[in-house]
């Protein structure tokens, strides 16, 4: 345990602490600006991971039609899993792509908590431990104690305002990274919906427990990710109005839309089991582009719907939700061989 602590201290805590002190000294003695600068530097350094996360989200979106095909086609969980993994390999998709940036940030988060606690010296005892961690450079050793005030924030104590900002930022980030899932049943869809809300609440709650310097780091990180996603996906693919709905904020990509158009799905997650059963040959996941008949059926249905009201599939969230219920029940029925 002591060895782990030593490694953690040497690799993370000490370098971050000294870097923050240097940044604070360079940025007019402001520890808040130092945290912002540190966050941006850290995010640029880990930008390949951010990029991977964005690509993964995009890839996930584009794979949806084919994943849905697999979901509907293969009733045997083992086979379904195999086919999904095969598809992942085929398109070079790594499910960890989304989780990795979060996992990488976890130790930084923990280290930063320790750094802020010690470098801001919330108690005499915590400041006491700081001297042993400073690199032997006058610029650093003479800097403490650092100014713990930034704007109206006391960086050493929790801030309610920042907690709210963190929660909102995390929510937007979640919305951006959530694709329409291959929800097979209500339970899965419910899990997805819950995930969108739980993370913001969780991080908002944490922000109320930890120094606001840490919340500032998290908030800037979130902003960075949102901006990166905005630039990566292009402004035309952002649907800000969906922020307050249960629909994903990212518009389906061109590929996904094309696949949806040609693959028999009304939207990226909308299928009926009956259609799939008819569309696919047994044992072979149907390529959406090759599904002429279901595609025609789908277009006809869409035209009928347009006549009734909506014009674009992704603007009919509520209608689709109702439709999902129907399709799920039929899907559920088709899962059960005895029901067929």
């Amino acid at each position: 345990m002591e060895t782990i602590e030593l490694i953690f201290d040497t690799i993370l805590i000490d370098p971050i602490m000294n870097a923050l002190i240097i940044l604070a000294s360079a940025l007019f003695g402001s520890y808040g600006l130092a945290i912002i600068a540190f966050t941006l530097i850290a995010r640029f350094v880990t930008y390949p991971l951010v990029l991977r996360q964005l690509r993964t989200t995009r890839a996930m979106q584009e794979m949806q039609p084919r994943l849905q095909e697999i979901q509907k086609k293969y009733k045997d969980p083992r086979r379904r899993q195999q086919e999904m993994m095969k598809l992942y390999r085929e398109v070079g998709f790594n499910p960890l792509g989304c989780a990795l940036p979060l996992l990488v940030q976890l130790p930084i988060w923990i280290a930063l908590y320790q750094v802020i606690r010690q470098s801001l010296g919330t108690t005499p005892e915590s400041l006491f431990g700081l001297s042993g961690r400073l690199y032997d450079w006058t610029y650093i050793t003479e800097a403490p104690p650092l100014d713990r005030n930034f704007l109206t924030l006391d960086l050493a104590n929790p801030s309610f305002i920042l907690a709210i900002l963190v929660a909102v930022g995390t929510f937007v980030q979640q919305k951006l990274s959530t694709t329409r899932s291959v929800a097979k049943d209500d339970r899965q869809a419910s899990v997805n919906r819950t995930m969108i809300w739980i993370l913001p609440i969780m991080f908002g709650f944490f922000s109320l427990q930890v120094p606001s310097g840490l919340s500032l780091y998290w908030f800037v990180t979130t902003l960075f990710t949102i901006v990166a996603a905005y630039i990566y996906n292009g402004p035309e693919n952002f649907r800000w109005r969906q922020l307050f709905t249960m629909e994903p904020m990212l518009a389906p990509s061109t590929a996904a839309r094309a696949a949806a158009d040609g693959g028999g799905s009304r939207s990226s997650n909308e299928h009926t089991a009956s259609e799939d059963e008819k569309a696919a040959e047994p044992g072979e996941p149907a390529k959406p582009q090759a599904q002429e008949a279901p595609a025609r059926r789908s277009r006809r249905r869409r035209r009928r719907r347009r006549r009734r009201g909506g014009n674009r599939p992704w603007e009919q969230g509520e209608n689709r939700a109702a439709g999902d219920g129907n399709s799920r029940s039929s899907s559920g029925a088709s899962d059960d061989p005895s029901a067929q």
Partner: protein
Amino acid sequence: MSSGPSRPWFHVKRRHRLLVLPLLAGTLALACQSFDTADGWASPQVFEVGERELIIHATGEDSIVAIDPGTGESVWEFPDPDSDGRFPGLLPDIDEKVDADSFYAEPLLLAGEELAVATHKRGRVYALRLDGTSARLLIETGSEIVSELNLDAAGVLYVTTATAGVFAIDPALPLDPEKPLSAGEQPGLLWQYNAFDGTIWGSPALADTETHGQILLVPTLGGTLYALRTDPAGGTARVAWTFEADAGIGGDAVVADGRLFIGSFDRHLYAIDVESGAELWRHRSSDWFWTEVLVTDGTVYAGDLNGYVWALDAATGAPRWDAPYAGGDDFRAKPGLTADGAMLIVVDRDGFTHAIDRESGSGVWVQPRETQLPDLFYANPLVLGSEIFVANEAGELFRVSEDAVELFYPPD
């Protein structure tokens, strides 16, 4: 082993996915659990009460206890643990509990066999009868108190807080037991001064000067040392002079022979002329000085946070030893002196007691490694005759000698 379908190692069953979040939350909560407990580092003191001596010690239960040095038994405790946080005879009769709180400031003897004790978090100062029969609330500052209290010859008590500045109070002001204090009322307050450039954790010292009269020397973590004229002309204190260090000043000010000695985070120990604020000399170490120096026989003894103890000529700053004593971890505690004056007793943060030859700076004995005491040590050692007492931040008091260590309080 398993004949089931091959699944990637990161696969989580759908119904278990929601468990991932609480697990993540738990990990973060565990990692970010607050270690920021201000345990206090008030040093044990000994006072005479009538015919007997009492060790006054800040416990780990956030209370002050009077201990019989012969038996180690508690004579009284404040707040009284058996009275639901109340203290018999507390004046004024405030309708609330005496908050348990940690103590950084050492108890200070007032006139009339009373002790002034300052609580850390709420910044309250009480006057306790040394026999433990009654207590008075002198002031509630509303700011944390880390610095020591100061009492001048006229009986004025100076309470230095972390962020609310210095309060000068008259501790002798009688309180009417029938008349509760109204909110914010500070009956003994003479003046308050709060125009400092940073938090105050170091301890002030009083000095008499020809030019400015009595001054209170207040160090700040902003790196400025303020000399305040305590004569309350104009209703408050006035700045006589200031001294700027290159970094924060967390050490305790000590005045001897017209010189002020204080350590700074800029790794220097300074000697400053109390009349003018001019720097007399400075001594550089390899780490912060965050301690209270011991000045005796024209020599300044100080430990630093790199584990060195220095002996310097008080007039010139020239080293008295061939090399500093190097044998321990960080030294925050002020060195103690044995009864015969031959040895310095220092305690490092790791809990090892060192006896150093005062003349040569060589180690006489060091507490054996196998008897290392638990927790961290910031409080000054108490040298009482031939016995040495050291206290850790958990409030345990140990009796230490060259070859033995025993827990003295609380009793096993």
